[in-house]
């Protein structure tokens, strides 16, 4: 890998070297780059540049950290005809993503009730790890329908209202999903898990709107200072992990079969035009639909639990979906490249779509402001909402960061947390947490993550996304 050089305050480049088809480009402030440089993720950015059909740059967002093949925070677009698709560019948790729900309630109203509310949410939404879900176990046929209809299945089955679909990326359903290439094992893992949160870094968070940077956009979104919102962060659960596992095997064979040279076996890939490539794309779309449905079901469970806990009616709660975003996904999109519209496969792994104003994919109500971009911090720290910009379309295939990114390994985090009462520390900061998995708290402690504010500011200063709102946590449910 060639020496890194700085292009401007927020952008760095790894020049092309042997095997790389394109340079690498990393969005990072100087201080974030000091941390990034200490790990292996830059090498991964260079490795991704070896993928056949990759266009312009192997990109990385400021929350970049090491992943399998692709770094987390990596974005790569390949030609939709002559390029490849790689499961490593999506991740195990296909369509892991976040949704933001606004309410009409103030933080002052919720504060004295936060423990009861978090407890109610903890009980209403199971982690689904070693336990059953809150909704009935689905039949195999049900799962197939979910894989085809996505969030639409949830609406048809009484989990929310139809107008919600306008505020989900791709209306909560990727077309040309192919449930028939999904293994029986994946179906078996998916059947009991719809409506479950999972564990690790998945969460439900009650947050206060603390700062508004763009009043006009915040007003358009119905976000009022000192009111509360909810974040739901989860993905496709065991079904997704199994699909990824299955297709890593398939693409490892395909990489050999089609004579593709990649420097890391975890960059296993298949030509998009091959049967293996088409099968993975179809399976990934179907799995993404499961995740959209999962977040829709969980939102309905959350709303129901809040109405009961607060003895309130839906009008008073005023819960409404602002946006649902995917941050582990690959999409076929049309982008203007060198003056021509071109179909590309955009891999976003730990990165989000951040389309600027004017894109037809956005609902009419957001088309002039740009797509909302949700950037949750880790447990106990702030989160942000931003919007996509025209510069994102020019530089990053309309992509941005997804969160804070880890700096400590889980073992380091556990070591540093020894002797500390993390629940107590967060409570002192006014944050009430309930977590199901015993190891989760230590592994997910705030010190384990980068500073999300610095990550968000980097993308803002680079002109890729525009900050709109900052949220601070009040209560967290972790699986």
């Amino acid at each position, binding site marked *: 890998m060639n020496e890194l050089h700085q292009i401007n305050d927020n952008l760095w480049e790894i020049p092309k070297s042997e095997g790389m088809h394109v340079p690498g480009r990393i969005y990072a402030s100087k201080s974030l780059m000091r941390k990034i440089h200490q790990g292996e993720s830059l090498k991964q950015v260079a490795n991704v540049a070896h993928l056949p059909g990759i266009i312009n740059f192997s990109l990385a967002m400021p929350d970049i950290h090491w992943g*399998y093949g692709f770094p987390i925070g990596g974005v790569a677009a390949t030609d939709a005809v002559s390029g490849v698709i790689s499961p490593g560019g999506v991740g195990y948790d296909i369509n892991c993503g976040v949704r933001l729900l606004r309410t009409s309630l103030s933080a002052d109203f919720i504060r004295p009730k936060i423990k009861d509310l978090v407890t109610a949410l903890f009980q209403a939404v199971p982690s689904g790890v070693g336990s059953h879900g809150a909704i009935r176990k689905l039949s195999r046929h049900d799962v197939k329908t979910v894989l085809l209809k996505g969030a639409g299945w949830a609406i048809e089955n009484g989990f929310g209202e139809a107008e919600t679909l306008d505020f989900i990326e791709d209306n909560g359903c990727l077309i040309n999903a192919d449930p028939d290439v999904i293994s029986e*094992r994946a179906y078996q*893992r998916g059947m009991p898990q719809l409506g479950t949160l999972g564990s690790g870094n998945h969460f439900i968070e009650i947050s206060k709107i603390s700062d508004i940077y763009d009043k006009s956009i915040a007003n358009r979104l119905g976000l009022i200072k000192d009111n509360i919102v909810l974040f739901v962060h989860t993905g496709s659960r065991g079904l997704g992990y199994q699909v990824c596992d299955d297709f890593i095997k398939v693409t490892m064979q395909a990489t050999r079969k089609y004579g593709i040279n990649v420097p890391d076996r975890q960059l296993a890939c298949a030509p998009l035009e091959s049967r293996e490539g088409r099968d993975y794309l179809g399976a990934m779309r179907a799995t993404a639909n499961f995740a959209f449905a999962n977040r829709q079901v969980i939102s309905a469970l959350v709303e129901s639990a809040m109405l009961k806990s607060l003895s309130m009616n839906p009008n008073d709660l005023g819960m409404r979906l602002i946006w649902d975003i995917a941050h582990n996904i690959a999409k076929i999109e049309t982008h203007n490249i060198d003056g021509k519209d071109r179909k590309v496969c955009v891999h976003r792994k730990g990165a989000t779509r951040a389309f600027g104003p004017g894109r037809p994919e956005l609902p009419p109500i957001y088309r002039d402001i740009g797509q909302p971009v949700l950037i949750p911090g880790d447990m106990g720290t702030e989160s942000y909402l931003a919007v996509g910009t025209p510069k994102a379309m020019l530089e990053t295939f309309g992509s941005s960061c997804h969160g804070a990114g880890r*700096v400590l390994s889980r073992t380091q985090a556990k070591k540093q947390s020894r002797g500390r009462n993390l629940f107590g520390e967060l409570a002192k900061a006014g944050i009430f947490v309930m977590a199901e998995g015993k190891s989760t708290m230590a592994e997910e402690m705030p010190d384990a993550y980068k500073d999300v504010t610095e990550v968000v500011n980097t993308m803002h200063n680079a002109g890729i996304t525009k900050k709109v709102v900052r949220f601070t946590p009040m209560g967290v449910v972790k699986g």
Partner: protein
Amino acid sequence: MKPFYHEFEQTSDLGIEVSGLSLKNLFENAVYSLFDLMVDGKNISEKNHRKIELKADNRELLLRELLSELLYLFQTKYFVVSRINITDLDDKFLTAEIYGEIPESEKYSIKREIKAITYHQLNISQTKTGYVARFVMDI
């Protein structure tokens, strides 16, 4: 039984190094370490018994297949392994008898969810005292 394993540094996930006096012992210890990482269980009985047969292209991939198979059984059937006896093992094929149960919720709690056994740093090597294996799990 205390599994012979420890965690190694891995930024985003869980890296495990496990040892064994023989290859058979190594594979069995890897299974015990998997369940020790996932589950806090008391007195898990051996009342249910299954036989499994697996194949793969080499011994590392075979180890990954074994761990993935038992992870799948735990995630879909809530089957907790108490004891495993590998009856046949070469570089590409294994058979094993597994003993455990689907415990009542009072008998165990979940420590963490494991999404998958990855290919990253997957390695088995011989040492002076036996064998050591490394694998990384996505959590």
